[in-house]
């Protein structure tokens, strides 16, 4: 088993890292890629799968090829991300809702 060079649309750079052929990672690995886009940490936000309606932290999704996150319950694609040198495409069609905890003002 070897690390995949991750030949993707992003000029050959691998996303999310530690991408291993045949080995799934989880949504924790997307924190950097999504941290470029969102102000809050989205991996600890609760996402509801549009397919099976399971709700859970996006950290628990199964991540394939470093850029496709699937529901741990039904395996439907919940999130895809594609990165080019100067932009990112984020496909959230598999998520029905994302719930963020926002601390109340003290």
């Amino acid at each position, binding site marked *: 088993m*070897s690390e995949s060079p991750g030949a993707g649309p992003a000029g050959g750079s691998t996303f999310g*890292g530690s991408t291993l052929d045949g080995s799934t990672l*989880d949504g924790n690995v997307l924190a950097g890629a999504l*941290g*470029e886009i969102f102000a809050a*940490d989205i991996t*600890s936000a609760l996402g509801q799968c549009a397919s099976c309606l399971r709700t859970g932290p996006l*950290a*628990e999704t199964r991540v394939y090829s470093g850029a496709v996150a699937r529901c741990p319950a039904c395996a439907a694609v919940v999130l895809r991300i594609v990165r080019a040198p100067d932009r990112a495409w984020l496909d959230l069609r598999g998520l029905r809702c994302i719930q963020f905890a926002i601390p109340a003002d003290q």
Partner: protein
Amino acid sequence: MARAAVLGRLSWRVATVAAVRDEAAGARTIVLDVPGWPGHAAGQHVDLRLTAADGYSTQRSYSIASAPDGERIELTVVSISGGEVSPYLTEVAEAGDQMEVRGPVGGWFVWQPDAPDPVFLLGGGSGLVPLMAMIRSRAAAGSRAEFRLLYSVRDPSLVLYRYELRERAAESSGLSVTCAFTRSAPPGSARPAGQIDAGLIAAAGWPPARRPAIFACGPTGFVEAAANLLVDLGHDPGRIKTERFGPSGGTL
């Protein structure tokens, strides 16, 4: 659920290797100085980007092994045979080298030193690394949360942080460490080599009634097995946080 921390825009920073340290067969700790590093919580990781002279660049995620320490962080990298990045980091990189890091990232698989609950850590192979950051942060912060670690590793030559774990556990500081070998156990071991099982988890961890915070990290197979065994033993799935990484069948 963790608080949604506002992070600001995440950007790459140039880090300089301050030192390297061998930890075990094929495993090395890379000590990095990162000017502008904002600090991190135990369990978080960084994305690391290497760029070759011809402009080819590639990135990987690595868990931070160290407790917060100003602008210095430590990553422990386990070499993956045939890998693109890890052999470079474990065999070639040396003090003075520069690389880019982005982070800290990840707010889910995180332990905060002000949490009083007992903690059960389950690490498979290099999955020990973020758990070590928790153990070190606990000591650095003077936390009294009681920790128990179950560390599953292929054979004794691959044990990470061997002496440090022994010392920290010997200080009777509220940390217990159980090592389980999956392929070959040292002579005289009470337990023959084998995968983790319910009996081992029950003996090494906390009773479900204590409602420990549980962190399981390692290759997918290890994490799935650990999580299923924990739930079968009566632990609340909502108290179990998992992180999967590394090659299945690697150092586990």
